[in-house]
């Protein structure tokens, strides 16, 4: 069983929902990233989505775009991100790390070489925003043959037939994007989301994570009631952007504590 699967299985036994924060590697400065990862874990992260900076983040809103630009100013690319994961693993061998990014940095290395290097760095899952299942068969094989979970997004406009195709490629979990639009957009409609998540569950036994639009304790709690994982991205990155070197870790710890309390207090309706 992969680390992601083990984590979900353990949480399920406790009747809990996973909290998955997102940060962009190298933001605000590469020297902070590994410390931030440990801070996230210490304050309730069950898994972490680690963004790989990219020059043209087409699916991201301004908040995560700026994070990518800050990281790229310090020349943090995919190779540097894998080194950060290695360093993190020196003292943490249990928390799943999911890389999230775009296809081209992977294309630049090649799918097979990337899978080798991700495995060597002990990465657990990969979300590639612009690799739809039709275009990444070989890549999925390379990941799965190394027990790395390829994680796919499902959107409000994904037709049921396509959900079948996607879940046949996916492992670990599927990630339901709760809004039309880019990351960091407006608030989510929890009733619509819960109907969609229920429909997805009829088509797969994979855990369902929900992200996009979760900004505070209220939305985190409401989402935790219906999902297996709650992903918080833009809100976290916004806080990092607004912090200084001195209060960065304490600010992040405080937000994580708030979110963790909210997620744990949800009454599961699944």
């Amino acid at each position: 069983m992969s680390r992601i699967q083990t984590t979900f299985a353990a949480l399920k036994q406790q009747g809990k929902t996973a909290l998955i924060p997102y940060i962009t590697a190298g933001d605000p400065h590469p020297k902070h990233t590994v410390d931030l990862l440990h801070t996230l874990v210490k304050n309730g992260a069950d898994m972490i989505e680690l963004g790989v900076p990219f020059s043209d983040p087409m699916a991201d809103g301004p908040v995560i775009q700026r994070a990518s630009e800050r990281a790229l100013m310090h020349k943090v690319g995919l190779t540097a991100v894998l080194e950060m994961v290695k360093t993190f693993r020196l003292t943490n061998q249990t928390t799943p790390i999911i890389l999230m990014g775009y296809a081209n940095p992977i294309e630049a290395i090649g799918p097979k070489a990337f899978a080798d290097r991700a495995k060597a760095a002990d990465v657990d899952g990969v979300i590639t925003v612009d690799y739809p299942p039709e275009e990444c068969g070989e890549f999925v094989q390379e990941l799965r043959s190394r027990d790395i979970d390829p994680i796919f997004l499902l959107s409000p406009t994904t037709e049921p037939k396509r959900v079948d195709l996607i879940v046949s490629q996916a492992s670990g979990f599927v990630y339901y994007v709760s809004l039309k639009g880019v990351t960091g957009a407006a608030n989510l409609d929890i009733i619509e989301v819960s109907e969609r998540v229920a429909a997805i569950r009829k088509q797969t036994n994979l855990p369902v994570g929900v992200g996009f639009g979760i900004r505070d304790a209220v939305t985190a709690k409401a989402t935790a009631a219906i999902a297996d994982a709650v992903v918080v991205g833009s809100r976290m990155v916004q806080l990092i952007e607004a912090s200084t070197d001195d209060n960065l870790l304490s600010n992040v710890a405080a937000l994580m504590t708030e979110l963790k309390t909210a997620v744990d207090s949800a009454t599961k309706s699944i």
Partner: protein
Amino acid sequence: MQLYDMPDARGHFGQFGGTFVAETLVEALDELRMMYEKYRHDPVFLAEFAHDLKHFVGRPSPVYHAKRWSDKVGGAQIYLKREDLNHTGAHKINNTVGQALLAKRMGKPRVIAETGAGQHGVATATIAARMGLECVVYMGSEDIKRQAPNVFRMKLLGATVVPVESGSKTLKDALNEAMRDWVTNVHNTFYIIGTVAGPHPYPMMVRDFQAVIGVEAKIQMQEMVGRQPDAVIACVGGGSNAMGIFYPYIDVPNVRLIGVEAAGHGLETGMHAAPLTTNSPVGVLHGNRTYLMQDADGNIIETHSVSAGLDYPGVGPEHAWLKDIKRAEYVGITDDEAMTAFHSLCRTEGIIPALESSHALAHAEKMAKTMRKDEIILVNLSGRGDKDINTVAKLANITL
């Protein structure tokens, strides 16, 4: 001989092209693909398209024998396909007419576009005004500075021009921003992409709408000189004017197809926009796989060209394919070479060419010198240079 039949059903030209987009865009692209499949051979749709090209755009655009310039260059006879004479001053309008007709049939009241030099933005704003569609154009703030007259034209036509401040603040960033708008407003918005790039079906659809250039040229060359040219030359940024004139010639033997990329300050300086000429690595950007200017980490690097319309780090996937199968050749022309050709055409023929098209002219000049006087080069004069007068004046240290 097997006829050229590309792309495949999912938009692949060999390893190039495809549909590399976020899941949020898949349904919108499926809808577009189905609608385009429905209408691309529909006689009523095609008749309406042809009618608008004739009466609104002013087609067919003439082919003109640049006799004095050919004599001055000394060598092959150079003919110009006069896309500069189209309404709005460039080939871009052909495609926007086609896509706007499709938007109408799909019931989308709002159109968006990205633009580099501003020609595609103007063409989109123009057709949107005529059809009563809301129009938003994304343009890099660097390009807004370089192309002030076109920005004003778009505003006169009722479009909203949104400056894009992210990344390199040029065409690629405008495309990113337009994609973000489309993901968010997909229910009421049609994205009119201006070049033969982007996810399937855009490279094919834009090519098809632009193919009128080559279709006309084939008839016109036959009428004028009784044969087809020895070489067809066009500039390539994303590559829509080149695909438009190349496509009908792909199956015509003995016609060399030559795409001219922007070599900027020189290919050896790295300050250029010539991914094909320099054999850049293959990668994925803006929804398709193609040759891309990028660093070792797969991040897109900044490009340079005096002409905003060629300032793009990738290239349409069909050009990548035509390069690999050796049906087309790709070369680079520097800023300086393009400027020389620009002035030369102005003075010799009374035609002010766009800086983009001046790259094609400069290569035609080079090639013609090596050819016989009875040989023929057809250059796609893709646009007129009125929009570039500020850039040209600045280069000559002249205040207008």
